[in-house]
C-alpha cells in the first residue's frame, strides 16, 4: 500500500486548487483575452461593436452601446459556443469556429447573457 500511496500524491496535488492555480486561472483568461482582442481588433476595426469569444471568454465582458446598435459576436474557439440572453431577448444558434451572430438592440437596458453550452461564460451589453 505504501508504494500505492506514493503514486497517488502527485495526482492529489494535481487537483489541489492551490494559490498558483488560482493565479493562473485569474490571469490566464484575462491576458489571453487581451492578446486575442488586440489581434482581432486589427482585423475587425471596420466592424465596430464586436464581441469576440476566445478561450471560453467574452471580450469585452461588458460592452456599452447606443440604442439601435447591432452587436456581433464572433467565436474564435475550437469549440462551439452560443449566446443567450438571461431574459430571453435574444438567443443565437450554436456558433462553430469563426461563426458569428448579430443582434440589434432596439431598447435601452442591461442585457446579461451567457453561453448555453458553458454557462460559466458570461457577458453583459449595456444599451443607453
Amino acid at each position, binding site marked *: *500500500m505504501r508504494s500505492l500511496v506514493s*503514486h497517488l500524491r502527485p495526482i492529489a496535488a494535481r*487537483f489541489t*486548487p492551490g494559490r498558483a492555480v488560482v493565479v493562473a486561472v485569474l490571469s490566464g483568461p484575462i491576458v489571453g483575452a487581451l492578446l486575442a482582442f488586440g489581434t482581432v481588433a486589427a482585423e475587425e476595426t471596420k466592424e465596430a461593436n464586436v464581441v469576440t469569444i476566445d478561450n471560453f471568454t467574452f471580450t469585452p465582458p461588458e460592452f456599452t452601446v447606443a440604442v439601435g446598435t447591432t452587436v456581433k459576436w464572433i467565436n474564435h474557439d*475550437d469549440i462551439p459556443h*452560443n449566446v443567450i440572453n438571461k431574459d430571453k431577448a435574444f438567443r443565437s444558434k450554436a456558433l462553430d469556429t469563426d461563426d458569428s451572430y448579430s443582434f440589434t438592440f432596439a431598447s435601452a437596458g442591461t442585457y446579461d447573457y*451567457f453561453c*448555453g453550452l458553458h454557462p460559466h461564460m458570461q457577458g453583459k451589453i449595456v444599451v443607453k
Partner: protein
Amino acid sequence: MAKNGLDDHEKGLGRREVLECMVWAGTGVLWTISGGVPHSVGLIGEAAAAEPATGFTFLQMSDSHIGFDKAANPDALGTLREAVAKVKAMPTKPAFIIHTGDITHLSKPAEFDNADKVFSETGVQIHWVPGEHDIIDEDRGKAYLERYGKGAKGAGWYSYDDHGVHFIGLVNVVDLKGGGLGNLGAEQLAWLEADLKDRSNSTPIVVFAHIPMQIVYKEWGWGTEDGMKALDLLKRFGSVTVLNGHIHQLVQKVEGNMTFHTAMSTAFPQPAPGSAPSPGPMVVPADQLRSKLGLSTITVMQGNKPLAFVDKTLAG
C-alpha cells in the same frame, strides 16, 4: 454550492489507492459489481481471462465528438474507429455500452449518422445520454431524442435493470442557467426519487450522465448544480457508482459507498483543471494523442465480490 474539488485524499485510503493506481496507470477500466463495493481486478486482457462464466462486462465510452476536425485531433471519427476495433477485439463480448454523451460535435444529422455507423460495428446495445454538443440542433435536442430517446422521459432520462444492477441514465446538459453548472432540474429529480422509491438498499446502483455529478472544477463549469440532490437520494444504497464524461480525462474518487469516475474521450484530451487558460481542446504531439484517448471496460461479477474497473487508452 460549496466548492468541492477532487483533492480530499486524506481519508479513507485503502481500496481507493488501488482504484486510482489502476486508473492512472492508464490502461482500461474494468468494473466488477457485486456486494456493492467497487474494486479493480486488473487490466482488460488479464481480467477478462480471469472472469468466471457468471460475470458480465459492459463498457463506458464517452465524448466521441464526431465532426470535430481541429488541431487537437483532425480525425475524431478515425479514433472512434480505433476504439471500436478494441471493443471488437475484446476476448469477452461486453453486454452493452454506456455512452456518457457528446456523441457528436455539432448535433448534425451526418455526425449522428457517422457515429451510429461506427458504433453499430460493435454489435452490442448502447445506452446513451446526451452531452451539450448533442442538443445544439435548431430544435434543441429533437434530433437526439428522435434517435436515442425511445422510452426515455423528459430530455432523455431513463433507467433499466441488468444482472441485478439498477442503471440510471440522467441528463444534466439541458436548460443551463447563466453562471451555473450542469443541471438536472426539479422534474428529473422527482422522477429519480420515484424511480428509487421501492428499491432495496442492497440494490447496486450505477448512475451515468454527461457532466460530472460532483463539482470537479467550478471555474470551468465542471460539475452539476443540483447534483447533490440526486446523490442525497442515492445515499441509502450500499453501492453507488457514478459514471460521467465531459472533461475528457480520468478522475476517480471514492466517498463512502459512492465511487465517481470520469472517462477519457475518444476524440481529444482536455487540460487538467486550472492548468490552462480555458478547458478547450488540448493539442498534444501526434504520437502522444492516443495515450490521452480511451474507453473504460467494466465487468460485473456475480456473487459476493465488488465491482471493479480499468481504463484503457487507444495507445495500449
